[in-house]
């Protein structure tokens, strides 16, 4: 077992660092329904961490706990070596945790460029007065951050639609714009909630390539939920498996694949 601060090198030669986020015995309830029950796992710097499980296993709830949308009744979230107090989602975002949504949550009335620029909220601190006059820090920030955003636009190959209102785009491109918006924040942890849901094989291949490239080029830590097992097994370094709110497996893709509890959860098991 690795120490929390120790890193390792993967088979394909990527550096994985120490633990950046740790969930300690998280329990989340909605009234009498227990969505997550006593789950602990960690996310290491630079790795691609998948969370899988059948429908209703509590994967999205887990992501919502990480992004601060839900505050768990029990358990602790540790981020960068410190215990995280209960926070509002926007405070979590400002700590460097960005996410995408299962059902696209873009700002339909705004252009692609504005959507992605909104992701730079952490980097743009000019006051209202400076913005009103469009002078000094405000003007400078607009240009600097635009440069950063253009890099991401190039990276995700969406140059041709940068001025298009998001509402007019097809589904696959919307997913990509949403990824761009999350990336624009230069997050330490990127949470992807089913980035490949509803895509055809080619779109999935594109998206997988983007996920790997993001991880490789920017060294971004990624936690993702995905239903396509082929994709998960190919992309991720480590996998957490959930079922009915409980953790039933955790480890490398190969370990998880051969775990009897996981096989039972996915294929069903005869109750006697």
């Amino acid at each position, binding site marked *: 077992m690795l120490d929390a601060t120790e890193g390792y090198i993967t088979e394909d030669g990527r550096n994985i660092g120490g633990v950046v986020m740790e969930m300690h015995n998280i329990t989340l309830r909605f009234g009498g329904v227990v969505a997550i029950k006593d789950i602990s796992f960690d996310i290491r710097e630079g790795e691609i961490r998948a969370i899988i499980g059948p429908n209703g296993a509590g994967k999205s709830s887990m992501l919502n706990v990480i*992004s*601060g*949308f839900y505050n768990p009744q029990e358990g602790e979230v540790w981020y960068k070596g410190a215990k995280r107090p209960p926070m*509002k*989602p*926007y405070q979590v*975002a*400002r700590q460097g945790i*960005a*996410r995408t*949504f299962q059902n696209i*949550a*873009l*700002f*339909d*009335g*705004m252009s692609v460029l*504005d959507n992605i*620029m*909104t*992701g730079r*909220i*952490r980097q*743009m601190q*000019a006051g*209202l007065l400076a*913005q*009103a*006059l*469009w002078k000094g820090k*405000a*003007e400078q*920030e*607009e*240009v600097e951050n*635009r*440069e950063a955003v*253009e890099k991401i636009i190039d990276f995700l190959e969406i140059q041709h639609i940068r001025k298009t209102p998001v509402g007019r785009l097809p589904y696959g491109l919307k997913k990509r714009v949403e990824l761009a*918006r*999350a990336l624009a*924040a230069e997050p330490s942890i990127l949470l992807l909630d089913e980035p490949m849901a509803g895509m055809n094989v080619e779109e999935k291949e594109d998206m997988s390539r983007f996920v790997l490239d993001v991880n490789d080029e920017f060294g971004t830590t990624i936690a993702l939920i995905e239903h396509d097992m082929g994709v998960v097994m190919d992309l991720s370094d480590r996998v957490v498996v959930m079922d009915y709110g409980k953790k039933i497996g955790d480890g490398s893709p190969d370990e998880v694949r051969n775990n009897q509890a996981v096989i039972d959860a996915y294929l069903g098991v005869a109750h006697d």
Partner: protein
Amino acid sequence: MFYREAGDFKTSYEADNQTFPIKFDRYRYYAVLVIAFAMVPFVINDYWVNAVFLPFLIYSIAAIGLNILVGYCGQVSLGTGGFMAVGAYACYKFMTGLDIWLMQDGEWVRYALPEINIFFSVILAGLVTSVVGVLFGLPSLRIKGFYLAVATLAAQFFLVWLFNKWSWTYNYSASGQISAPERTIMGVPVTGAETAPWAAYLFCLVFLTLSALIARNLTRGMAGRKWMAIRDMDIAAEIIGVNPLKAKLSAFAVSSFFVGIAGALFFAVYLGAVEVGEAFGINKSFLVLFMVIIGGLGSIFGSFAGAAFLVLLPVLLKNTLVGGLGWPTDLAAHLEFIIVGGLIVTFLVAEPHGLAQLWRVTKEKLRLWPFPH
């Protein structure tokens, strides 16, 4: 054909970020500025200023203000009339010398501050209104949509009631009205009976130009993006780092600032004397809201278009019906209601996104005209 951007290449992000990135638009904008500032003042008379230009300029400021709140931030407000009243009364207090009552040796003593220049009075009135706006914007943190509209309706009725009852606000005058004394800028009167038409026009035009510039700068920058993010999907906005409290309240503050300036000008320059229930009643709130909706939500140009439509149309109709056809005035007045109402409905059915969208579509068409593709 008429409208093209071919060959108009931008080589820096500054150039791409401008208000009018297309050269043709930019020159047209300069031309409008030159005409408005350097030519119109020489040719207008009293009738044009009072019937057309002043209401258009002042309502444009109010519409820009309301558009920031409703069109950009998605928070419906029916309190515009009340906020305009705050601007008017604040301006009145500042221009006549704000008086403060202090307790001294068990007695109330009145201290009057010096009168403030009318230009700064109007700006201060805007600031006071933005504080009041933030106060009445607080419910928006909990409620949305129609329910928020009803909550702001409370602001409308409360503020009008307040300015009726609180004699300090109208300097204890017996009639309960406020009337603007003569105030000058560099020796030229801009309020009061002696005001020249061109002076009143220019005074309001300066405020409109500044308001439009500020509004445009805010809405193309980060502040505007935060507002629009809240409008389009508030949960997603919060998760990517927009503080909903700050975004909503800043929209209320900026919006009320402009609405307050509009109210101050409406009272001091346009009407001269004001009875609050009559000048700033619920009708005003609806009128400005209609301007914003007809003009186009989330568009600065739309604010101008909406104000122009609702100010000019009645004047135009009255002139054609009474002046041109010689119909009796009462018949014309009733017909005017019917026609304006009918046109509003027609417009909204034909183009729900307002005149601004109509303009955008026209531009798209004109790019290619006379070719179909």
